[in-house]
């Protein structure tokens, strides 16, 4: 074979890789652009100049900024924008990894029962005032986190009893989800008026609880777990061809599976413990990415995270501003914005790999 033909294939590959890299960079740019734009949006009537001024004044001794602008932009908007971004990243990444590791396009933190588990933990804390670690301000957060991880452990444990088949694992997740939903319904039914409202609020999810002290912990945690998961990109690629092929490519399938599932469970749990259930993103972000750039997990994982961040940030900004000062629950807006977009991609693409 001649050398120029080999060179050709290399160029084809280089071009494809460059396209995916570019796509990733464009997504990153979009997230940053929307984030900048979102700092100027809100219920308080602050001009663009004032909003940016407030941010700049933090770093440069440039201009005089009103305390009001500083409070609104630095204490209220910025943490919330960052919270939207990291929550979106976590859910998008966890969704992509879970779908990849289980080779199933319908899997998400929601279908595996993680969200219901977290919700159940939160509901127990809200209604009974009982937490894993006693009582206190973070009782809901901590309960949600541990119940979410507990769910993953139970689901995985059940599937181990039946030889770790993927189908058992997914069905066990769905079943646990129903069980926890039943517990939540029971708690909702027996609880009083205001507790009920609090549970409903938690179930709808939202980013209004964003605070710097939480965001500061979550950012490094989310980035760390995302990086860790990205190290398994090649293994996930190989596993999508089936367990046997993956294992013949030198991959310890069971080990990769439990590591990836646990890491994504921790990733999901750590954000939904603060935000409540935010559905849809974990399921759909990976699909949007696959439709646009294919399934190579080296690109899929970061892009799915960024798509998740973008969708959640746009949705949350819309929910803050559409009928301000009243805020619309973010889950409602996410679905209104995300579903038409996803359906458009679904019907406009010829490929039907999900069949």
């Amino acid at each position: 074979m001649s050398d120029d033909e080999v060179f050709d294939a290399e160029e084809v590959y280089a071009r494809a890789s460059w396209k995916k890299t570019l796509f990733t960079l464009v997504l990153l740019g979009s997230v940053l652009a929307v984030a900048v734009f979102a700092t100027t949006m809100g219920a308080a009537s602050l001009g663009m100049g004032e909003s940016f001024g407030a941010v700049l004044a933090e770093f440069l001794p440039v201009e005089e900024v009103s305390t009001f602008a500083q409070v609104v932009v630095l204490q209220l908007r910025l943490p919330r924008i960052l919270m939207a971004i990291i929550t979106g990243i976590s859910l998008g990444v966890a969704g992509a990894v879970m779908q990849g590791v289980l080779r199933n396009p319908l899997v998400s933190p929601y279908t595996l029962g993680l969200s219901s588990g977290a919700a159940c933990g939160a509901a127990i804390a809200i209604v009974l005032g009982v937490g894993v670690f006693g009582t206190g301000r973070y009782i809901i957060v901590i309960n949600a986190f541990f119940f979410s991880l507990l769910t993953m452990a139970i689901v995985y444990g059940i599937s181990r009893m039946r030889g770790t088949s993927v189908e058992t694992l997914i069905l066990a997740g769905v079943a646990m989800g129903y069980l926890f939903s039943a517990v939540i319904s029971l708690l909702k039914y027996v609880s009083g008026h205001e507790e009920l409202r609090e549970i409903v609020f938690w179930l709808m999810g939202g980013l209004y609880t964003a605070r710097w002290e939480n965001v500061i912990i979550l950012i490094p945690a989310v980035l760390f777990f995302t990086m860790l998961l990205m190290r398994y990109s090649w293994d996930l690629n190989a596993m999508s061809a089936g367990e046997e092929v993956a294992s013949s490519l030198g991959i310890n399938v069971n080990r990769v599976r439990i590591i990836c599932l646990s890491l994504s469970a921790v990733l999901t749990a750590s954000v939904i413990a603060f935000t409540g259930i935010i559905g849809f993103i974990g399921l759909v972000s990976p699909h949007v990415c696959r439709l646009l750039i294919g399934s190579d997990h080296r690109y899929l994982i970061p892009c799915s995270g960024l798509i998740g961040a973008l969708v959640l940030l746009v949705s949350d900004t819309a929910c803050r501003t559409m009928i301000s000062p009243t805020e619309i629950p973010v889950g409602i807006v996410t679905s209104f914005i995300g579903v038409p977009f996803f359906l458009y991609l679904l019907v406009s693409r010829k490929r039907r790999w999900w069949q």
Partner: protein
Amino acid sequence: MIKVVIYVNKNQGIIGVLVCLCLLSLALTGSGGEATPSSDTVTIVDYTGQSVEVPYPVDRVVSLSSSASEIICALGASDKIIGRGSSSIFPPYIEDVPIVGKSSYTPSIELIIELDPDVLIADTMLTGDNREMIEAAGIPVIEESFVDPPRVTSVMSNLGLILDKEERARELISFIDQYQSIIEERTADSRSEDKPAVFLERGQPYRTASASTSSHNCITTAGGINIASGESVKYPTVSPEWVVEMNPEIIVRSVWATTGETFTREDLKEESDELLSRPGLSEVKAVKDGRVYVHSSKINSGVRSIVGELYFAKWFHPAVFEDIDPEAVHRDLVQEFYGLELEGVYVYP
């Protein structure tokens, strides 16, 4: 009169049959839906505008509404309550009464028909279907609203009438009225620029109430301006930054109390501390001036809502209401009408 009733719900099938049988027997005896008026009955008009004819005096009452239960007990007729909704928890001795449902929305029709009371009192959460079913069993239903103070007054006199406790009802109404008049008189001449801007928070952080809610009425009556009155959602969650921008002079936080237990000072302080620690609020006038108040929702509904009114008025206009001690009024109220000592903490600070 032939009425075909089809019940889809499996659990209500038996009741359905029962109701059908009742209808049938009523039709056969010719009494139908309208009983012949006699001197032993009395007719009142309920909130929905329906004329309800009940035996006089009513001896056996089922109350699905906690406010109704409070009023009946205040009238000294607690012994006439034979069934209650599980949210009726005040006064404490009412907890000996059997439960016949959770609220007006979820009554246990079976238990109610079994108890066969002279009248059932519910609030507006009662569904039309349930009302029909209970009425079909021959139990008169009074559906009432307890949101608006004037309406509550007329409920008090209606209940006084049917329970033959008119004198007691007049005492209760005048007790409440005297303080209501004080509030109205003293806030009437305060000019609108003297009225403080108030942000009221109910339960969840930043959840507030717009116009046409009892919370809004409470703020307005006490001489405050509800900053969220113009919102289109009844109980909206608002943006924190908007609250910062509106810069309210007073923040009131209602903490929901759903059990019979009362709050301790620590409970309410915790709520207050949480609110004060929220990002951004430190710049708000109310926080700077130390005018953030937390209170238990118990003084905001039913007979005791006058106590809440007085606290609001005193918080909004401390100089004008200097001579008023809401806690003393609260103590008098529970002592005089329920024979109880005041326990627990209801406001902070």
